């Protein structure tokens, strides 16, 4: 995936300003002070916002301005900073939503219920359960429980699992450790590491404030400030970068 001078204006504010970005088979950390445009950047890539100008290219295809559901279908999945699961649905239903973009049955097949439609559902359920087992085996037995009945860390896990169950090529994680304590942070980081082990081809963009997280899982770090990209290097080099220190700590 790459972007070419990606820009979005909200009124007079350039939230993301001519960002050139590229990712290929790696884990990239996205850093920046509050309000620097990190989440807006993810919203642009996942199709929630339409860019004012610039291009987004994914697997040699221009996807600029495509709807969010089209982009998901092409293999870009994301999680949200504030946990966004469907609260009145069960764990398994939330997981099944992650496979929606992969489904082959149409609405009239849902009414007529031919054999392949039922088979698809059973296969999807099995796939969701296997992934849940991978993250936390306890969740498999609770699959019918409402999502509101489980702990925050498990909700975070389910959100990540929902994003990767459809085997996306690019995963966008928006602050996966927000609101978790240090022990839970370690667990989530382990889980994210497991995703890379399980699927070598998946690339990730992670927004994170915790430098330990960034240093332990990212191959490369991109720093945004006031919508502009100010650095793009390894973690060690970024730490020495004066511009980054100024942006974070003030002149």
């Amino acid at each position, binding site marked *: 995936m790459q972007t070419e001078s990606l820009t979005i204006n909200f009124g007079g504010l350039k939230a993301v300003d001519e960002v050139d970005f590229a990712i290929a088979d790696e884990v990239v950390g996205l850093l920046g002070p509050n309000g620097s445009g990190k989440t807006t950047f993810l919203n642009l890539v996942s199709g929630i916002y339409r860019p004012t100008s610039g291009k987004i290219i994914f697997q040699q295809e221009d996807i600029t301005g495509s709807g*969010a*559901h089209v982009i998901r279908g092409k293999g870009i999945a994301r999680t949200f900073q504030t946990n966004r699961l469907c609260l009145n649905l069960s764990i398994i239903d939330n997981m099944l939503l992650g496979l929606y973009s992969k489904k082959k049955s149409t609405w009239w097949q849902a009414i007529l219920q031919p054999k392949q439609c039922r088979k698809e*559902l059973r296969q999807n359920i*099995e796939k969701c359960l296997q992934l849940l087992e991978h993250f936390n085996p306890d969740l498999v037995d609770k699959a019918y429980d409402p999502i509101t009945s489980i702990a925050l860390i498990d909700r975070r896990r389910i959100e990540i699992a929902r994003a990767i169950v459809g085997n996306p090529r690019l995963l966008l994680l928006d602050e996966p450790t927000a609101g978790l304590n240090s022990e839970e942070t370690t667990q989530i980081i382990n889980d994210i590491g497991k995703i890379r082990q399980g699927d070598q081809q998946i690339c990730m963009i992670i927004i994170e404030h915790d430098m330990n997280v960034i240093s332990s899982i990212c191959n490369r770090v991109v720093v945004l400030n006031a919508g502009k990209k100010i650095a793009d290097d390894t973690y060690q080099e970024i730490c020495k970068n004066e511009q980054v220190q100024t942006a974070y700590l003030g002149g």
Partner: protein
Amino acid sequence: MQRAAFASKNSLVTLLVSVLACVFLYFALVGSLFVALTVIGLGLALIVFGEYMGKAEAIHTAFGEHRILGIAVLIMFVLTLPFLLKGNNYLLHIVVMGGIYSVVALGLNFQMGSTGMVNFATAAFFGTGAYTSALLVTKFSISPWLGTVSGLAAAAFLGLLFGIPALKTRGYYLSLVTMALQVIFTLMIINTSWLGGPNGVPGIPAYNIAGFSFKTSVVLFGMKLPYQANYYYLVFAILGLAVLVAGRLYNSHVGLAWNAIEQDEIVAVTQGINQTKIKLLAFALGAAFAGLAGALYGHYTSFIGVENFDFSISLIFICMVLLGGMDNVLGVVLGAMLLTIVDEKLRDFADYRMLMYSLILIIILLARSQGLLPKRIRKYGKLRDSKIEPNF
């Protein structure tokens, strides 16, 4: 040994609850206003008490395990009801109207219960079906069956057409737009003379099969049944089909997508749900249900007028879904049946009828704001089945 005992207990629970439900419905129907209200109050108290004691989930599970048994009891009840009512044509008429309204409410539930789009134009879709079929049959003398299918198609088409601009808005604004459609529909009918204007469309022919008109009474098992019984069996066959379709949609990816849209549109689209398409589907399918019911209504009553399809009727449909239980197929049918029965029983109150009607609604919703049978967690049966290979 123990497992067998447990299984039989669950089947007993299913049998007991479904028979009880049928008995309650029967007495609510045949009794006077006082009896009907007592029965409904008792039923309500049982539901609230059951939930309070934590038995509701167990009953739900029991029904899940012995669905066939529950369905069999209901079908037996539906089949024998005309005989139980001893061919009373007034009571049969109430049940037929309840069946017709249930189909409409099931359609509205796709929009309101599943997707969270409160549609105030259901009566307009109901009317579209009724007028299309009635006019085609009276003016071009086509078969009423064909007219009914046209009514369904016309309503679905209107739903689709109307959905395209309406879906630019959300929430309250969407509801406002649907109110506008309802007002336009009523005014258009009143002011268009070839649609019957304020006089309505009289003399709509009844259905017939191979020369047998549905307006003739029949003798079945030695009992003379009024012509309403023909319509009763027709309407309940269609209602059964509607329940089947609605239940399957609810348990499929379509129902799931509708629920996701209702919860959080941003999350839904980032899971790959095409929200325009799935919302239009809710509109078109809901309208199709309403159109089918409308056509049935026209051929049953043989007269339709604009007052059968105005804004207040739309409100009643909304109350049915709200009272029965949003996004619960059986709940919606129960809500529609009960409100139709209550509405008829309140005829004694003449001018105070709507006042009483609203009062009963308020009391029920105070006691149970989530509706009589609220939304439940979707069940897919036993989850782990060793025979199934996941498809990676």
